[in-house]
């Protein structure tokens, strides 16, 4: 075991960016308030001091402009990390991030790639209301050419961010404002990377597989603990990246447990959750004791009121109900 260090989620991301910037001068950070303000959510704390304003760059509130600009820079060989204060604001940059970045390599016949990382807060939970609470994985996972990373722990956040920066394709890195203060043990070392497309079994179990990513992984862990008291043993899988998707890990688990509940905090219609369900139905049709169950955000705009928002999101209660329903006759 290599040495570890306890870090907040935000600092794990910061350390990953800083280490990569020390290692490679092509890497720079750009976005609103990333430099002098030290990041709207303090993720880039201290980076301006270390790297200076040529490499840690404040922009005006022009998501379409600076996202497109960073893509142009990436085409020429730089490796920009672009911070969206929130992924909700990336929607005004939909054209550059969805129409330029993921298609450049393809439509240029391999001549121009786009080694870029877009990162920022994703998901509801802070009572930010309907416009600021997007879980953009629901939209963006539909688009080939992108890689989508949704870490659930500080250690993964660091290892996956380093992989993202070294990756040659556009990576969408989805953080959760709710988790930025979460602490965890993070391996020390510049070259501890977490590979894309490798799910992690966070808890082993025999009766039902819980597959999730990002913040809801923690709700799954709570639910698994609760359900254990009832004698239902859950296996919790943290996918970590949804493009590439480690469907094999879920498949192997479902062959063992015969039940699957997917927990996805984006809306259900045309979501990563529905994709995983479809693939598992196809791969494990004869292994399943029940249809795949899904727990999503409710199919309405995100509400403001605290109680409504809690009810809107996937939560431990809903996960337990889904697992009970999936396993009732096993």
């Amino acid at each position, binding site marked *: 075991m290599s040495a570890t260090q306890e870090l907040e989620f935000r600092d794990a991301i910061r350390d990953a960016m800083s280490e990569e910037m020390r290692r490679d001068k092509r890497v720079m950070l750009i976005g609103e308030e990333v430099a002098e303000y030290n990041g709207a959510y303090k993720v880039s704390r201290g980076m301006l001091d270390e790297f200076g304003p040529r490499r840690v760059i404040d922009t005006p509130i022009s998501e379409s402009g600076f996202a497109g*600009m960073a893509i142009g*820079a990436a085409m020429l060989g730089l490796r920009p990390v672009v911070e969206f204060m929130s992924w909700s604001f990336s929607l005004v940059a939909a054209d550059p991030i969805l129409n330029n970045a993921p298609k450049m390599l393809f439509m240029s016949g391999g*001549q121009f790639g786009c*080694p870029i990382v877009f990162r920022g807060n994703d998901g509801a939970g802070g009572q930010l209301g309907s416009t600021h609470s997007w879980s953009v994985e629901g939209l963006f996972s539909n688009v080939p050419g992108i890689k989508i990373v949704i870490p659930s722990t500080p250690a993964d956040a660091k290892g996956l961010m380093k992989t993202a920066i070294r990756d040659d*394709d556009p990576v969408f890195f989805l953080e959760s404002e709710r988790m930025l203060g979460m602490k965890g043990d993070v391996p020390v070392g510049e070259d501890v990377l977490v590979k894309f497309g490798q799910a992690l079994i966070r808890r082993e179990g025999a009766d039902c597989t819980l597959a999730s990513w990002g913040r809801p992984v923690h709700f799954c862990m709570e639910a698994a603990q609760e359900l254990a008291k009832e004698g239902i043993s859950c296996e919790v899988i943290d996918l970590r990246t949804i493009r590439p998707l480690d469907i094999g890990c879920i498949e192997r688990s479902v062959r063992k447990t015969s039940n699957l509940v997917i927990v996805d905090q984006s809306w259900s219609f045309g979501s990563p959750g529905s994709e995983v369900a479809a693939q598992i139905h196809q791969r494990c049709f004869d292994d399943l004791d029940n249809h795949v169950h899904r727990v999503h955000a409710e199919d309405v705009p995100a509400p403001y009121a605290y109680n409504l928002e809690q009810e809107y999101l996937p939560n431990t209660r809903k996960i337990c109900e889904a697992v009970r329903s999936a396993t009732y006759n096993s």
Partner: protein
Amino acid sequence: MPTPTTDGNSAHDVHGGLPITRRAANRPVPSADLLRAWYRDLILIREFEIRCMQAYQDKKIGGFCHVYIGQEAVAVGCVAALKPQDPLVTAYRNHGHALARGMKARACMAEMFGRVDGCAKGKGGSMHMFDREHNLFGGHGIVGAQTPLGAGLAFATKYEDEVINNGKSSRVTLCFLGDGALNQGAFHEALNLAGLMNLPVIFVVENNGYSMGTSIHRGTTQSHDLSSKALGYGIDATVIDGMNLLEVYHGMKDVVEKCRRESRPAFVDMRCYRYKGHSMSDPRKYRSRDEEAIWEQGDPIGTFEKFILDQGTITQDQIKSLQKEVKLEVREAVEFADNSPVPPLSDLYHDVYREPWGKYSGTSEPRMYGGALNPPTFRATREGDGLI
């Protein structure tokens, strides 16, 4: 008929607008070799586009096809004012830019035909000409989308020169856009960013007076003086007669030199006219045949041809033989495209991601430079090629 004018004095002038400053008369005439090469480029683009229109009618070319006829002097003059290592990015009306930059007619035509020998292996199409060797960073299909990309290319060249190599910014980026793109948010954000960050990018508006069927007066405020768009962002603006190759060249020389020296953005209102419809399906009901006839009298090729004949740079016979040569070259390009195989179906899953994973087979093209896990070297593959 009144004489064609782009000076804003004619009832037929589609731009309206402030008078153009003329420069060519006070400048030394470029060398005869250069003039002849430019003439060849002009007629090559014209011939290429004519053959594209035919091939489109013959259903050899699919999708949208926007030809450049009438605007040839803009591409040729602008490219002539650049160095080969200066990045260039443009919109979908891009065949002329690609040819002027040095792309082979056969690679361009094969791309139009959707064949494997196209510049992008048939995956880009008419609107998306990319050519790494010639620093052409694409034709882009979404109106205005290339303007932030242009700012970003300039950001990258400057970053490489100044931050990575501790030197002085040495390259400029040329970003073409149509007058319709002036009304896109991306354009305004790009200008603000370029102004704020002192990026060496030149936004050249190919102001042909129309975006599809909308005349610039119907779609754009201050259409008589587009300079005001740039001045609002602290960027200097120049008006150039895009129907006259020498005006384009000398005007752009000044702009490029200043942009390179000061490492500051620039804006050019390049007055021109497209002779054909917006794309192949446009009956041009929104403008009069009279207006078109007047502009055709100011044909950039005719004007330039007369100039070089008057100069004694070229003889009628030499013109004839150049025309023949170009016709042959383009005919050969069409044959080449026609004989080039369609892309293999396996190409669908190629070039989606750099490295193979799952059903994706990665890409066989070399990286921009330095592998992700190799220490970056920033060594150019060719002298003057920068990051490529």
